[in-house]
């Protein structure tokens, strides 16, 4: 018997309104994501990939449709409930890493757990050190984000995304700003962690190399899965 899917979206619609002008971006997206699945989200620019990621990441709300994650209908959840849910169950890896520049690598990784616990616990720091070691940055633990290279920053971002052991990690062009070697290292890491921690990944990309590393590809075109 297969496990229940981590994510189920049905007829997801997102329309942006500016005055009287309506711009439909997502036009009824349907998709599921299984536990530990590594899935690429492909599509040309303007196809709605980033909008879909922000909705799946609970950073934006759909205009209509159903968004269920871990069996919970998120379309009716309050802002505070979504914030808490996001902190506990979703990790993000952005194209430009988006680390907090005034904090060290360790502090950046601990951040999601500290938000949850209200303080930095020793246990969270141990887990953060372990994650940084896993992404090969044990020697950079106390470096400020500004002192790290692009590849190192992205690896710290991956460690941060995994801090609270989320069921889903959403990655938006995670290798887009990296050179070839760094991109390969990051993809290896994502594949390894997905396997080891049974974390589901949805990776938005234009890069066929990245898509080829994923077991499944979902193509979005003109706001719908094709």
């Amino acid at each position: 018997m297969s496990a229940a899917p981590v994510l189920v979206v049905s007829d997801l619609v997102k329309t942006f309104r500016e005055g009287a002008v309506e711009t439909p971006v997502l036009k009824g997206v349907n998709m599921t994501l299984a536990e530990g699945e590594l899935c690429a989200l492909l599509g040309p620019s303007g196809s709605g990939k980033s909008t879909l990621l922000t909705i799946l990441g609970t950073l934006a709300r759909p205009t209509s449709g159903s968004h269920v994650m871990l069996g919970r209908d998120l379309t009716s959840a309050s802002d505070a409930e979504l914030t808490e849910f996001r902190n506990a169950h979703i990790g993000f890896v952005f194209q430009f890493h988006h680390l907090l520049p005034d904090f060290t690598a360790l502090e950046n990784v601990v951040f999601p757990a500290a938000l949850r616990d209200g303080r930095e616990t020793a246990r969270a720091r141990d887990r953060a050190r372990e994650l940084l070691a896993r992404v090969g940055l044990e020697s950079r633990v106390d470096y400020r984000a500004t002192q790290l290279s692009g590849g190192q920053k992205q690896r710290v971002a991956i460690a941060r995304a995994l801090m609270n052991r989320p069921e889903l990690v959403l990655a938006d062009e995670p290798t887009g700003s990296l050179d070839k070697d760094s991109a390969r290292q990051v993809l290896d890491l994502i594949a390894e962690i997905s396997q080891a921690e049974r974390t589901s990944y949805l990776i938005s990309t234009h890069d066929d190399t990245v898509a080829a590393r994923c077991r499944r590809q979902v193509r979005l075109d003109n706001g719908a899965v094709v």
Partner: protein
Amino acid sequence: MPFVLKVAFRYLTANKSQTALLISGVAVGVFVFVFMSALIGGLAVLLVQRTVGNISHITIEAPDADADAIAVDSHIRQLLVRQRSSAQRTLLRSADAFVPLIEAMSEVKAISPQVVGNGFMLRGERRAAVSVTGVEPDKVTAIADLGSRLTAGSTELTSSNIVLGQKLADDLGVRVGQVVRLRSDRGIERSFLVGGLFAVGVEALDGRAAFVSLSAARTLFEIPQGLSRIEVKLNDVYQADAIARRIAADTGLDATPWTANNAQLLDGLRAQASSGNLIKAFALITIVIGVASALSLSTYRRRPEIGIMRAMGASRGFVTLVFIVQGALIGLIGGLLGTGLGYAALAPFPPPELTGSAGLPIDVRQGAYGLALLLTVVAATLASILPSRSAARVEPVTVISQ
């Protein structure tokens, strides 16, 4: 350490020079607040001390009896009364019973039962009108600090000596050790040996006052029993109204506080305090504007970071609190620095009572340090509310996609 405090502290220390400038600005505002409090307080102490330092704070007299009504006509609303003779004196006949009661009050510093009257002082061909005050021998300096204002002799009173104002003595041409004759308005004449001369800088005292012993005054003014008045000096001059009401209620006598005859001084002090409060309010407003503008810039600059925090699961409340805590910390550190500097700068000033005419009457005790610190923390915290609310409204999706 709570995580919100750590984040707020990290943001404050991220740009040390900017934060140092902001805190310095707050400290200067607090310094102005402390300085104005000490200056206005010191001025008040000086003015009050110079005005009421040598006068009675409460004067107790027998209540005036209502004038006798002679004729009343309700149709034309005319009332005819008999004027009291100026020679008729109202005495505190049973005052002896009240003296120990009043003296025992904790707020009372000194008490001086007195027999007073008018007369002429004669020295050869010269004569001068005098206001004679008969006091108990050990109470001559109880109300007016004549001891420190003596120009010659001593304040010691016996039944045969007299202490005079320097100007009065000059007018009569007498010195300590010489004899003067005193004729009371009752026509009784006695000779006294001049025991001491004083100059307090008040014309009414220096040019007209003569102090004799209570027993001598009883003889001069034919008052074998009772008192003309009781003068009371308090530890705190500002309690005069309340204590006077209490004495009047307890004894049934007329108790007049110094404030009743110094309304202009009180108005002046109030106006002075209002001006000081206005300056202090402006200092606080400057702090609020400084903190609000600095935090507004900070929240604008940190919009991407706020978006990332929100994406990681930071609630709007957490973001709000980060910036409010920053405001409070700026207020606390700036407040401590400002009050500390204020105290250090004001401490060398002598008490206002000892300030010379050219010096600033600074009262370091009235720096209102606690109030300044409290108001600064509150003001800086309030100033951070608007920027923090603006920070909490940042939508992560808009800044992440930039």
